[in-house]
Every structure is written in C-alpha cells, then in structure tokens.
C-alpha cells in the first residue's frame, strides 16, 4: 500500500494570461479518498487550478503528479491523465445531440475502446449510480438542470476515474435542484472517491469536506479542516471572504 503517497500532487503551479497572473505558484497534495473543498473570491484562480489538474489548461510552470508519476511533460499521455481525473462543469456541458446514455458512453467507447454493448452496460451502471437510469434515453433538453448535472457526473464516473474535479457543480441550479446533486456527491465521498470541489455550498463543505482551501489572487492563503477554516480562520482575508458570503 502506498498510503502516504498523494494520489494527485502539484508543485509550483503557475499560469499567466498575458500579464495577468491566474496562478502564482500552487503547491498541493491530495490524498486518496480526500474531499478537498476550494473557496475564494471570483477571479482568484479556482477554475484555473482545476483545469490545470487535468490539463484542460496548460500550466506555464510546475509539475502535476498523478500517483507519483509526472504528468506535466509535453510527451506525456494527456488523455490518460484525463481518463484518471474526471471533471464536472458548472454549465454541465452535456452533448445536446446525444441521449443521456450517449453522453455517458461516448468516451467509454472511444477512449476505453469498449464495444457498444459493454459501454451501454457501464453507462447504465453509472446512470444508476446518480439515480437516473430511467432517463437513459432522454436528451439533455428534456432533463432538469439537476438531472443534467447528474448525467454530467455519470459521464465522468463511467471512465472509473481516481479523482473527480467539480467546478461549481451546483451554481447554475435552482435551489430546489441543488440537493439531488449534493446527494450524489455525498454518496461518492462515502464510496471513497477522491474529489476536489470548487463551490459556494458552505454547508456541504462543513459536513463533507476533509479540508478547505481558501484561495486569493492565484495563491493558497490558508487551508485546514472545515471547522477550523469556517470558525477560526487565521487570515483576515479568509475571515473577510467568509463573512461576505455569509458562512
């Protein structure tokens, strides 16, 4: 067992857009099974960090290690990293021309190279996991926002990733639909999935997160267990942010 080795680690991660520094050198270790919750003001680099973690965004400097293996080189198999590190988006980004099952199975067929039958079985299992197996044949525009986001989660899960990144998964949802998505995330956590979650659902963070990271201006300002961050933050910036969002 390699219990001390982080499943995902970044060292000195930097990213600039023109002259604007989005990430100013991030060091982060994520343990297997951990739920890391990332908060911070708008523009602090939360999305950029997540997008760098599966290299949807190419960092300028720094290393990304998956299970100790450097994944940041140009010649590395990007698609392998992405298959291990799934992503769920604020805007769901479902494929509108495919059914829920089609959304979930596309990469299973094309990346894992499964037959259609095998992919459908995997896809239905993933949809069952998010409670939507009866919607397998529905198109995204026939689903509620909460259902669409659960299909988005199923799409990530179908590849059996080791880590799932969530970028504000409930921000685009009406309040009454948020619960169903958080429920799925809670189940995932219970099943031992490693998760990095950017979200404003502070209540969810308190009950489900192992660690809360506060970011500002492209850097990690403070991190710790939720009760410590939410009730005894040391940094004035953290406290100011938390009182602003009413946590």
């Amino acid at each position: 067992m390699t219990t001390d080795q982080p499943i995902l680690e970044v060292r000195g991660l930097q990213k600039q857009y023109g002259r604007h520094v989005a990430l100013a050198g991030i060091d982060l270790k994520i343990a297997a099974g951990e739920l890391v919750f990332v908060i911070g003001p708008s523009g602090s680099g939360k999305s950029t960090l997540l997008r760098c973690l599966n290299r949807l965004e190419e960092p300028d400097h720094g290393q990304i290690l998956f299970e100790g293996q450097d994944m940041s080189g140009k010649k590395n198999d990007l698609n392998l990293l992405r298959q291990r590190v799934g992503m769920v988006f604020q805007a769901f980004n479902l494929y509108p021309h495919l059914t829920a099952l089609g959304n979930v199975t596309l990469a299973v067929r094309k990346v894992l190279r499964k037959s259609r039958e095998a992919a459908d079985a995997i896809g239905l299992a993933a949809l069952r996991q998010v409670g939507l197996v009866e919607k397998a044949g529905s198109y995204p525009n026939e689903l509620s926002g909460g259902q669409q986001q659960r299909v988005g989660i199923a799409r990530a899960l179908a590849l059996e990733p080791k880590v799932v990144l969530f970028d504000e998964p409930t921000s685009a949802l009406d309040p009454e639909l948020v619960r169903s998505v958080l429920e799925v995330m809670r189940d995932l956590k219970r099943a031992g999935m490693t998760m990095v979650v950017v979200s404003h659902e502070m209540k969810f963070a308190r009950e489900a997160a192992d660690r809360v990271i506060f970011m500002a201006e492209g850097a990690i300002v403070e991190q710790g267990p939720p009760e410590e961050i939410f009730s005894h933050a040391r940094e004035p910036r953290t406290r100011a942010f938390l009182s602003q969002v009413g946590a």
Partner: protein
Amino acid sequence: MDGGAAFVDAFFKPALIARYAPEIVSGVGQTILIASTIVLTGLVLGVTLALIRSLRLPIATVMIVIFADVLRAVPPLVFVLLVYFGLPNVGVTLSAFAVLWLVLSLVLAAFVEEIVWAGITSVAKGQWDAARSTGLNFATTLRDVILPQALRLSIPPLTSRTIAITKNTALGSVIGVPEILNQATSAVSFSGNATPLMMGAIAYVVLFLPVVIFGRWVETRFAWRRA
C-alpha cells in the same frame, strides 16, 4: 387569331412540344447528372476544408480563407469563361462538362467551407472542454461532438446555398454543355418560337421545386435546435 390562341402559339405550340421533348428530356438528364456531381464534390470538399481549418495551422488557414473569399466574390460565370477559354492556352483542354463541374464544385466548396466553419466556431467552448476532459482526442472530439452540432446549425444555409449553386448549371449553356437551358435555347433558335424555352422553365420547376420544398422542410426541421 384571338389572344389566347396567340399565347398558346407563342409558348405552348403542340407541334414544337412534341418535336423538342426528347432534347429537353436529355437536357434534364444532363442537368441532374452535373448538379449531383457538383453537390457531391462541393459538399465533400467544403467540409474537408472546414475540418482542415479547424486544425488552425496558420498557412493552411490563410490559403483556405483566400480560396473561399475569392470564389465567393467573383461571379461564377467569370470563372466558367476564364477556365473554358483560358486553360487551352496553357495546354490544358477540359470538356465543357468538366469545366462547369470544376468551377461550380469549387464555388460550392467555398460557401460550404465558410458555412461549416461558422458552425464549428459557434459550438460552445464547453463542448470541447467536456470532450477533452473525458480523454477524447482532437479528431474524435471534432467528429463525434463538434461536427454533428456544427452541421445541424449549418443545414439551413447549406441547403439554400446548394440549391442556388446547382441552378447555376444553366451557365453551361454558354460553353455548350447540353443541359436544359442549352437545349432550350438552341431549339428556340431553330424554331423561332419560345415554346422550347417555356418547356425548359417547366423542366426547372419540376426539377427544383421538390428540392426547394425539401429545403424548406429541412430548415423548419432543424431551426429549433439553435436554442
């Protein structure tokens, strides 16, 4: 002779209809043949160019943009004449049919490239993110995620543009392709009567009306998908 009889005599003279029906029918055959080869070539080439452009290679992009802009800017008749009368001077002789096919295929390809490229760029960026985040490579993302949506957006303009270009097969009459208009005009000059031209017009209606109706159906069928 009253007005009605004179009208019939000028445009629908039964003897001439019988006399020139075989020519018009063979013209219809030529028009169908050349129009369908143009549609096939133009669509395949245009989509291919749009796909090449999506690689965003600077040199390829510049060449495609120049190609598309020039072919869309100049009236097709100019190219037809230029190629038909110009190429023999440099030792290349193409049949009239080949010239018409080549020019109109390239013109259609230019429009198709622009339409499909516009479709590709209007697919939301999040679609690329989602596909790439699941490990799909560039080619698979383009083929299975982006292109189906881009083509759906492109179908209405593609349909109307394709109809417009295929009607340009009538330009073949200028260089002697025996299509509908050519058959009709030469019959007119032999007979000194407009009846063969009217037959040609009716032949165009019979040929293109179903296509236009199909185009309208396609437009309404796919328009709502834009949302």
